[in-house]
């Protein structure tokens, strides 16, 4: 597949008009979030954890758990709310809508989507609706994974399909009020899916690749003993024309490239991913001829790296690895060479890692998939990045609620117009 060249055709007037949006170096935020989300600067108040239900633990259901992240609060580091949904659905990933009023959360097993209101009472999200028709709506996509805000709608990457449970899959779009819009299947040459991320300045979208339902819902011990099944993992990152939703270039990245993170600084035309099976930290970069290429920039070791998080100044990548339960920090200030500068042992099955809005705090959880996890303790751990070291701040046990997976940061005070910090303000019903 050929790539297309992009160029600089916009009129000066357009560039002037749009350049006012720039804020200089990004100060901080959830660096992995959609660029269509309003950014909130400052200390996060809450961490929403989409949590796998466990039989015999609480009501056994999947739940959205709220952790108090406010230093000085009497409940700092504690679970302050659990909003349960009926049943266990293989709770996995979740994401905000473009107005940050809803959090959409998916179940990889039955493909249910749970839409939570996180605006009315940010400490206590409320289940607004459950979309049970994802497979039917989309013409057979299974396993809604990444929930990515676009203006007025949600872009959802899936992992599998209803026909054969393989990794052939696609993307779906829904309006913010839950109406299905369209399905976009992955190209035949690269049928797998996992993450999806957009760079608006370049009009480019990246998708990565994992495995189908018959792999991810299979017990891990069985899976790794089955050579044929182990071949059924994705090996590609696709570069798309975002606006056209059309693939431009397929990059071969063997070993299941998972999370994608676009660089955030001006003129940084690159992204990172990590491969679960070949344990590489991978740079995806734009070449001068307008095509894209990849380079392995660090070998993480045979530990199944899972989630990664990029510092807001593009200087560091945080990598969690499942097998050895370690959080590693790589200096990527030269993006072509990742240097390991810090690592801490988190505990078994380390999984998701998220950096705070100001780059000062890092949170990690330790559940991957219900049939891949081992018996053990489940938790959320908070660290601070201080003096080039990861300094522990608190550990929240999930023993009473389930297994912690993805984190999204919330604020007690909803976002407002720029400049609102000039005066303390309050909104109230019209």
């Amino acid at each position: 597949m050929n790539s297309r060249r992009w160029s600089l055709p916009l009129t000066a007037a357009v560039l002037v008009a749009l350049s006012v949006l720039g804020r200089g170096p990004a100060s901080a935020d959830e660096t992995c979030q959609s660029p269509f989300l309003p950014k909130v600067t400052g200390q996060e108040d809450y961490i929403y954890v989409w949590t796998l239900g466990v039989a015999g633990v609480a009501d056994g259901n999947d739940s959205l758990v709220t952790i108090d992240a406010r230093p000085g609060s009497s409940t700092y580091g504690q679970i302050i709310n659990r909003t349960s949904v009926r049943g266990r659905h293989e709770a996995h990933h979740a994401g905000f809508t473009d107005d940050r009023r809803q959090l959409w959360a998916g179940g990889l097993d039955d493909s249910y989507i749970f839409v939570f209101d996180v605006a009315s009472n940010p400490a206590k999200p409320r289940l607004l609706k459950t979309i049970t028709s994802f497979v039917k709506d989309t013409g057979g996509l299974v396993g809604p994974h990444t929930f990515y805000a676009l203006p007025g709608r949600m872009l959802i990457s899936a992992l599998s399909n209803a026909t054969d449970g393989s990794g052939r899959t696609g993307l779906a779009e829904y309006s913010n009020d839950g109406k299905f819009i369209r399905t976009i299947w992955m190209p035949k040459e690269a049928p797998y899916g996992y993450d999806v991320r957009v760079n608006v300045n370049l009009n480019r979208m990246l998708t990565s690749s994992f495995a189908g339902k018959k792999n991810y819902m299979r017990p891990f011990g069985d899976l790794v003993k089955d050579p044929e099944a182990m071949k059924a993992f994705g090996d590609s990152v696709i570069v798309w024309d975002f606006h056209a939703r059309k693939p431009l270039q397929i990059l071969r990245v063997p070993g299941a490239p998972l999370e994608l993170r676009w660089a955030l600084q001006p003129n940084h035309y690159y992204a990172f991913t990590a491969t679960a099976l070949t344990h590489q930290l991978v740079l995806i970069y734009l070449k001068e001829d307008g095509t894209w290429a990849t380079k392995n920039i660090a070998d993480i070791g045979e530990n199944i790296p899972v989630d990664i998080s990029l510092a807001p100044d593009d200087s560091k990548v945080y990598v969690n690895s499942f097998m050895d339960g370690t959080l590693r920090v790589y200096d990527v200030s030269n993006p072509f060479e990742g240097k390991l500068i810090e690592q801490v042992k988190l505990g078994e099955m380390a999984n998701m890692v998220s950096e705070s809005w100001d780059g000062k705090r890092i949170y990690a959880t330790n559940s991957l998939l219900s049939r891949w996890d081992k018996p053990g303790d489940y938790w959320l751990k908070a660290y601070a990045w201080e003096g080039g070291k990861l300094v522990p701040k608190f550990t929240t046990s999930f023993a009473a609620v389930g297994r912690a997976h993805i984190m999204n940061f919330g604020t007690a005070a909803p976002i407002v117009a720029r400049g609102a910090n000039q005066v303390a303000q309050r909104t109230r019903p019209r």
Partner: protein
Amino acid sequence: MTALAAGRPLADERVPIEETYIQGDFAPRFTPPAPGTYELPAIQRVGSFLVLEGSRTLRTQTLLAGKIGVVSFVYTACSETLGCPLASEAMRQIQSHVAHEGLRERVVLLSVSFDDVLDHASRLEAYAQRFGADRSLWHVVRAPSARSLQAMLASFGQDRTRLYDDHGRFTGRYRHTLKVFLVDQRGAVRNIYSTGFLVPRLVINDIKTVLNERGEEGR
């Protein structure tokens, strides 16, 4: 449409923080894909509403009849560079493209004020003049009542929340997400542009894409 999608206001919101966007530098560096090379499926349908342009009462369905509408919600006191001024500057450029590319008879621009306190006819008139609105192409209007405005905002999914200070006084400012809507000839929203993607050239290509759809030629 859910209450949340409609942006219904929240109770007792304290808002001491600022809004910006995650990818801090928005400077589009791409050629928008050519018209007709991609699809714009319907995202949602919007209703028809009465609006006031000066002292004239108009119905949006009539204004937009058989045309592609570019609809923006703004308020004239908005001072955010990321907000209404950006939207209206983009509308000015879209108006210019529409006029120069022979699309005048097929496109209408609509800026709707959501400030039902301050934005009376004279303020909107001045606002339209400031941005060079060609009244045969670009209508700067307001809703006839708060109830009507609320219904319109809900239909489009445009959030708007009044901001109050610590003493409970209205500051004259609103929380809102910048959104510009591309509405087709049958009242279906075909694209929504927010701060990161409000590129006039791209909007024009989207207009042409919708106009060139099978069955639309010659309408």
